[in-house]
C-alpha cells in the first residue's frame, strides 16, 4: 500500500493544479484507505468537482467529501474603527 502521506500530497496537488478545481485551500487527510476532504467551497458543482478530482488522484481509496458550502449572506452589522 502506498504511504498515506504521499497520497495526501498527490491529492492536494491535483486539487490545486487541475483546471477543474484550482482549489488551494482544501485539507486532505488520508487514514489507511480513507481520504477525507475538508474545507469550504462556494457552490455544489465545485464541491462535486473536487470530489471527482480527488477520486482520480487516489484510485481505489474511499473519498469522504466533508466539504461545506459557504453561504454568502447579506451584509451584517458594520464595524466602527
Amino acid at each position: 500500500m502506498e504511504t498515506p502521506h504521499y497520497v495526501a500530497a498527490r491529492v492536494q496537488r491535483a486539487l490545486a493544479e487541475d483546471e477543474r478545481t484550482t482549489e488551494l485551500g482544501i485539507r486532505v487527510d488520508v487514514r489507511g484507505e480513507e481520504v477525507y476532504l475538508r474545507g469550504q467551497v462556494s457552490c455544489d458543482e465545485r464541491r462535486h468537482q473536487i470530489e471527482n478530482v480527488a477520486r482520480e488522484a487516489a484510485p481505489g481509496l474511499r473519498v469522504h467529501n466533508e466539504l461545506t458550502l459557504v453561504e454568502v449572506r447579506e451584509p451584517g452589522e458594520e464595524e466602527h474603527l
Partner: protein
Amino acid sequence: MRELRIAAVADIHLGEDLRGHYRKKIEGIERRADVLLVGGDLTRHGTIPEAQVVAEELSGLPIPVVAVLGNHDYHSDRNEEIIDLLRDAGITVLDDEGAVVPIDGVRLGVAGGKGFGGGFAGKCASEFGEPETKAFVRHTKEIAERWRRALKELDADHKIVLSHYSPVKDTLMGEPPEIYPFLGSYMLAEAADAEGADLFIHGHAHAGTEKGVTPGGIRVRNVALPVIKHAYTVYCLNGDHC
C-alpha cells in the same frame, strides 16, 4: 468631516458557474457603503471569460469600486489584460500604486496591489542562496517599496492599503503555520507602518480570521469571503462622530 463607510470583500473567485450570484448579493450596497474594496482572487483561473463575469458583477454600481488582483488572477498569465478589462468596466484597479477616491468632499486614498509572500519576522525567507529563493524574496521587497512610495504620495484624508496577501500572522490564524510564508509577508506591514494608514484590507487566507493589527498599530482585516461569510463587510472610518 463625515464618516466613511468602507465595504470590503476578497476571494470572490467568480466563474461562469456563478454568473449573477454575487451581483444579487450586493444590490443596494450604496445604502450601506460609500465605496467597495475588492482584495483579489476575483477569478478561479485568471481567464478572460472569468474576468468578464467579474466585470459584469462589479460594474455599474452606484458607488466606486477599487480592486487588486490575487494569485488566482495570475494563473493564466492574462493578468495585464484582466486589469485592462476591469478598468474599461469602470473599476479602479491598483497594481502597486495609489488612487484617491473623492467621497462627498472627503478624499479616500487607497494604495496597494496583489502583494506576495515570504513569511513573518523571525520566521521568514531571506534574500540569500539560490536565485529562485532570492527572486521570491526580492519580489515582495520590491512590491513593499512601491507601496511605501504610493502611500507617501497619496494626498488624502484617510488612507487604506488594499492587498491580496496578508501583512500579519494574526489574520492567518486557522491556516496551517507551515504555509504562512505563502500567505503573506511582514514587509507589507512594514511599508504601511512606515507611511501610516487607517486600515489594511487583505484576503487570500480562506481559513484565517478576520481581525488583526500591524506591529505599528494599523488595523488589519482579512475579508476573504469564506472568512467573513457575507457578501462584504462594512468598516466605518471615523468622521467627527460615528
